[in-house]
């Protein structure tokens, strides 16, 4: 029970990162970014390749990996999303779906379809709760996510760039009139989404395996469920939703996973359908 809860919280914290990225992009570009999971895969692969084939330290690998994820996000924003900003709302979504498909296929070609495990960032056991050993890795994941949430909160409420992004998201016309550069706001929000996705990938990679499309199938779908639960427009909701989904997944695997294959996916489908039926705006979303 304690183990399931704790590992659920750790996964959920990572899902919260993905979910925040999805919400930031949704608020700004009014589309679901289906490529959010691929930011993570790219970051994890880049880190893996650097660690595997160069003598560079972990920290360098991490930074390069995050840069790669952000670069991918910015490339998508510039080449696909921005040119489609005046098109039908379905178009950018189709574009991210197509790019995700391409990315998965490309990863399969480059990796030969094999899966990898990234070495742990930190090793060792931190402490025990109720007989369950808590590793430093878990503590790190939760710590990084908490730090991200705090920094994100400061950024969005205190910095000019953060406020500009929020203004551009809630009142595009007014924001443009008062001189907020919409292109910049769009790039910033996608860049942040890329950073969050990359971070999520690096934190999850040591505790799961990385294979082509893996993060799209697991983390992206969990994060989308989390945003539905928390409310598509609420960053706080995304965090809460991520943690709840992580725990729900972990508990369902522990308790019904033996008799039902894919229990986590079934639970996610159930949550999405029930939330959209009962309270479509989610727990904290704007009505």
């Amino acid at each position: 029970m304690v183990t399931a809860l704790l590992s659920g919280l750790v996964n959920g914290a990572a899902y919260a990162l993905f979910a925040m990225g999805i919400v930031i992009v949704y608020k700004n570009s009014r589309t679901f970014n289906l490529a959010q999971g691929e930011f993570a895969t790219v970051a994890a692969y880049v880190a893996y390749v650097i660690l595997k084939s160069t003598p560079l330290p972990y920290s360098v690998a991490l930074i390069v990996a995050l840069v790669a994820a952000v670069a991918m996000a910015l490339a998508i924003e510039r080449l696909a999303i921005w040119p489609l900003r005046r098109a039908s709302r379905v178009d950018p979504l189709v574009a991210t779906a197509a790019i995700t498909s391409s990315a998965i296929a490309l990863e399969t070609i480059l990796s030969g379809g094999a899966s990898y495990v990234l070495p742990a960032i930190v090793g060792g056991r931190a402490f025990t709760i109720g007989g369950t050993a808590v590793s430093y890795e878990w503590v790190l994941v939760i710590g990084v996510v908490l730090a991200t949430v705090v920094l994100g909160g400061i950024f969005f409420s205190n910095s000019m760039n953060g406020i500009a992004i929020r203004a551009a998201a809630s009142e595009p016309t007014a924001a443009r009139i008062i001189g907020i550069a919409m292109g910049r706001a769009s790039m910033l929000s996608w860049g942040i989404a890329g950073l969050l996705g990359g971070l999520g990938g690096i934190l999850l990679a040591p505790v799961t395996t990385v294979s082509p499309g893996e993060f799209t199938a697991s983390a992206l779908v969990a994060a989308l469920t989390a945003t539905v639960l928390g409310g598509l427009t609420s960053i706080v909701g995304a965090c809460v939703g991520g943690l709840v989904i992580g725990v729900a997944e972990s508990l369902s695997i522990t308790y019904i996973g033996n008799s039902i294959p894919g229990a986590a996916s079934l639970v996610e489908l159930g949550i999405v359908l029930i939330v959209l039926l009962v309270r479509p705006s989610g727990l904290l979303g704007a009505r």
Partner: protein
Amino acid sequence: MGLIQAAGRRGVGDLSRHRGAAKALLIVICIALVAVLPVGISSSWNLELGFACIYGLIGLSLKLVVGSLDRVSLGQQALVGIGGFTAALIVAHLPIPFGLAVVAGGIAGALVASLIGGIALRLPRLHVALVTLVLALAAENWLFQEDWFSGGQLGATLYRNQWLADNYHLYLLLLACLLAAMLLDYRLGRNKFGRAVRAVRDAERVAEVYGIRPLSYSLSVFVISGFLAGVAGALWAEWEQVISVSDFPYQLGLVLLIMVVIGGITNRLGVVVASGTFAIFSVVLGEIQPLVNLVGTTRLALFLPVLTGPLVTVVLIRAARKQERRDAGGRGRPVGGDLSPGSTGSVHALARLSPSIITRDIWRSPAPIADSALVVENLSVTLGGLNVLRGISLAVQPGEVVGLVGPNGAGKTTCFNCISGYQRRWSGDITFGGHSLNKLPASSRGQLGIARTFQGGGLLRGASVKENLMISRHRALGYSAAGGVFGTPRSLRAEKVLLEQCRELLALSGLERLENVPVGTLSYGTMRLVEIMCVFATDPKLLMLDEPSSGMSASEASLLGDWLAQVRTELNISLLIIEHHVPMVVGLCDRVYVLDAGTVIAADVPSNVRVDPAVVSAFLGEPVRGDT
């Protein structure tokens, strides 16, 4: 009226009949060629062609969602799998013929689609993508892994009937199914059902004015799409004889979406050809030996997905640019100004027709009976902390013409929105002819005979003038949507009559040259005119006009006023008009309500209202002595 026009129409009819015959012949030849294609080519190829048919069917099912509903499904392969496993399950356990198993597969797909659609289609458009993606993962990780349903990792086996043992025979069956689906897709678009679906896709609110219930139409299309996907799955199982969970990974959903977009989301043949090509593409590449030596077979299969992502993005951006250019071009040169020689504006076209001629001679509607009074009591609306309406009450008696005036922001349009059903949260009571409207959806209010125009122009901008008129007659067409899809004689007759009526109306009003012009390219005044013609075509009992004369010159506005006065003398319907053009209000209305800051400050005959000190103050800002 119309001998000359009738003759002209017959001439056109003859020509199109010849063209139709030539087209039919061409289609028959193409089908025959495709049918004999597998004869004489190697058996591996033979297999791939059958697969191309199945993919074509899946592509069509997805086209219905993307093209007709403007929504994205990422779970089509899940519905395909559900259909396939259901068919295999049924054939394994029940002694029923294969044909029925295919239908059962289709029904399974339709059931799941109705569950998903019933929830997701009520929500903003992108939600369908989200729900179907989660469905795709749940199918792949849970349902298709369940031993009882899919045979787990090993998959399910479906043995073929004796008479289908030969691949070629089955190929012909698959081709027949694909053609039947194409025919269905064609029929879906050619009658009141297709028009309603289009109206819901392009302008949901306008559709509701015409009495079309958006959810029931979009859900029907979604369920039909699920049925086709399920049928495709059953045929897939029959063709391959073994299907398993690995056939339906979630990535397939992305690929299916890509192929539909590349085929052109509303282009039937394009989608089928693109999907079929996708199905056999890697096999075609595999025939090119040097390429295989260079990259290896497994990588070859991945080439297409890698290339299509960028390709789709380019396709989308090009289409968006083209659309932008078209919109800009349309705005630049309105065609409404040069309607017909000798007329200065579009309203003249309306002035040529008396209202009774339109209802009696063209639409052949029964004379409207104004038996319904609109009563609004104590209506309040609060939007974001702002009291837009504060307990206003008003009434429109049967046959009465009532004006609603007031400065900008007084709450006039909000009041209209409450009456027609677009305002979500309000309090108070609204009744029409004794029916309480409080809980009725907008489309039901349309069905009761309440029609309205919109300030921004309530029309389908991408559809032509003729198509808009035809859509507006939705409720008056006396055949069922299903009858229309299957082309019952009654529906075909009704469609023919409708087309004639629309042409006649356009001819009489002098608008025949605009018949096929997209409404979005018309000038503002002409759009207003077409909109009024459309709401008038719904046989309304209460017509609510939101600033009908805006965008018109003073002389045009007075013509419109004359025409509306004619409506009032010739027909027995009620009018509720928001208007700023004072002469029109004074000349037309029996009574006028003046709204200011969400309250009714005056309600009287126009001549009294004009001199009411409170009204003068509201409009001109002059303080009322002793009031403050």
